[in-house]
């Protein structure tokens, strides 16, 4: 296990002018892991990332990279790259030269630089933008240039600070998939900062939920979702139904003992996935052969809606929000439309027992 640890943070604290911004951070990041730092604005995510990037030094504690302490290593000697929160693209270079910067510094042959830059621009869908100046690009395009500029250096570790913040919803979803695909394909370890829990859940192998400069909980999305360690995590993640399933083929997911039509595709046939169903999307209907059936175990009136718990025949406890009441002990069915079903990658650590770091 230890050999796989690319980065190790030990008792890391960071103060600014005597104010503690990060307290006692213990965290390891495994090779090829997609780790997300998730937390509300101001909780210290960017600061933690800057410690990794070398732009801040910890007030106390140590950071190991490949087993060696890097707290005295300047940023330019670290084998990692950053996609900055506000891109920080060089205004005096065009798109090509921005992306080429790291390679030119490394003095790679011109032809090789051209090839690599073009590859990466193609990857982020900006092939035709090579000669554009930065100020002519939209926010989303700038973000993609920033991603290409970091990726082109093929770093062992990529730090991304809310890289999709400026994109509209549709494009953000696309880029999420794209980033995840790149991460798998290139075998790069990602540390991804976001305050968007849905983004964190759909992309991460591991999520570290942060609040107030502390890591509240570390675990796979499923673990965090199903067993929030405290009320902050539960509140921040939001309650939902999350269960394991299999993607039978494109647009067909299998869970709770039967097949459902869904809107997702691009998975391998019979690939294990995670299925998320929001409580408010569930429609309670009389039980039939085409519904997930169970018994209502509790019902609470929340002012606008009822919060209903239904124990499925397979033992899974469903959470349902409905404006209609139901009777405890009655048998009901759950009806799901294709767009109620959200399919997510199963974390590579979901099967393995998750190891918390211990001093």
């Amino acid at each position, binding site marked *: 296990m230890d050999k796989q640890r690319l980065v190790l943070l030990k008792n890391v604290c960071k103060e600014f002018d005597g104010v503690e911004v990060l307290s006692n951070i213990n965290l390891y990041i495994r090779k090829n892991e997609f780790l997300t730092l998730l937390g509300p604005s101001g909780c210290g995510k960017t600061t933690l990332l800057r410690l990794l990037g070398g732009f801040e030094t910890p007030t106390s504690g140590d950071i190991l990279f490949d087993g060696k302490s890097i707290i005295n290593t300047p940023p*330019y000697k670290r084998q990692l790259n950053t996609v900055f929160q506000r891109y920080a693209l060089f205004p005096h270079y065009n798109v090509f030269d921005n992306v080429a910067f790291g390679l030119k510094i490394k003095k790679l042959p011109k032809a090789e630089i051209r090839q690599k830059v073009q590859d990466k621009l193609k990857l982020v869908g900006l092939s035709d933008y090579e000669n554009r100046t930065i100020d002519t690009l939209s926010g989303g395009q700038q973000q993609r240039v920033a991603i290409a500029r970091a990726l082109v250096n093929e770093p062992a570790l990529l730090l991304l600070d809310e890289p999709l913040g400026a994109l509209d919803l549709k494009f953000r979803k696309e880029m999420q998939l794209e980033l995840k695909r790149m991460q798998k394909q290139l075998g790069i370890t990602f540390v991804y900062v976001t305050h968007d829990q849905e983004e964190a859940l759909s992309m991460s192998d591991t999520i570290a939920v942060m609040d107030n400069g502390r890591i509240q909980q570390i675990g796979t999305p499923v673990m965090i979702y199903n067993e929030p360690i405290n009320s902050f995590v539960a509140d921040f993640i939001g309650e939902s139904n999350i269960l394991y399933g299999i993607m039978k083929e494109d647009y067909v997911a299998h869970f709770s003992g039967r097949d459902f039509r869904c809107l997702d595709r691009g998975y391998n046939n019979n690939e294990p996935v995670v299925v998320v169903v929001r409580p408010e999307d569930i429609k309670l209907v009389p039980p039939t052969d085409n519904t997930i059936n169970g018994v209502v175990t509790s019902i609470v009136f929340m002012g606008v809606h009822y919060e209903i718990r239904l124990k499925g025949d397979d033992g899974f406890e469903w959470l349902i929000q409905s404006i209609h009441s139901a009777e405890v002990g009655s048998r009901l069915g759950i009806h799901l439309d294709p767009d109620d079903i959200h399919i997510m990658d199963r974390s590579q650590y979901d099967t393995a027992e998750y190891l918390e770091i211990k001093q």
Partner: protein
Amino acid sequence: MNKKKTFALPYVVWMVIFTVVPLLLILFYAFVHRTDTGALVFTTEYIESALSGSSMSVLLLSLEYALITTVLCFLLAYPAALFLWQLKSRIGSIVNLLFMLPMWMNFLLRTYAWRALLDTSGPINRILQLLGFPAQQLLYTEGAVIFGLVYNFLPFMLLPIYTSFTKIDKSYIQAAEDLGANKRQTLIHIIFPLTKSGIITGITMVFMPAVTTFVISRLLGGSQTMMFGDLLENQFMLLKDWNTGSALAVVMMVLMLLSMALVRKSDDGVMPGGM
């Protein structure tokens, strides 16, 4: 719309009276000859005499001094601005103030002060003598003129460069470092290009006025070092030859426009990515 134009009116009137009219007058004097009978005829004789060998050598000397001054000012101001920029903002503005403080005094006063300092019996020579060196002729040398020019024009180089430094977003520096650039590479590829507009402004604000300086050279250089400004002044004030004086002014203006265009051109010429 029309209201806005009225607001600009005082400035337009000012411009016409104090810039356009004098310019036209200079052109008139430079190219128009009044015969004994009072008739006005076009002539290039004044321009030709302005282009004569002796005035050209003065012009060349002025250009040389101005160039040396500009280069020295840049070499002093750029590292200073870099240093100021890296200071904490509060300390930086205090140090910046110290740099600017001499500017609050009229440059003639300061130049007179330097005459006293550089005099053969002045404090500098006295210190030299205390250290066992013979007294040096400091005043009335080329060195004194160039020193005086650099001293007077340094703030005009420092200020625009420092301003362009303060406009650099520090995240660019961090991005460069993140991409593997060390301090020197960051300076060359990121900081320098991003402060180029300040450098250009600084060069323009030092070189142009330095060419036409006249009092500094006379006070610190005596009669040895006549600069183009001195020549111009003599032509008007001493010889009262307005025609040749205007012709000299025209030659100088053309030269300035050319050098301005050259500076602009080199600004565009340095392509981004030419690293």
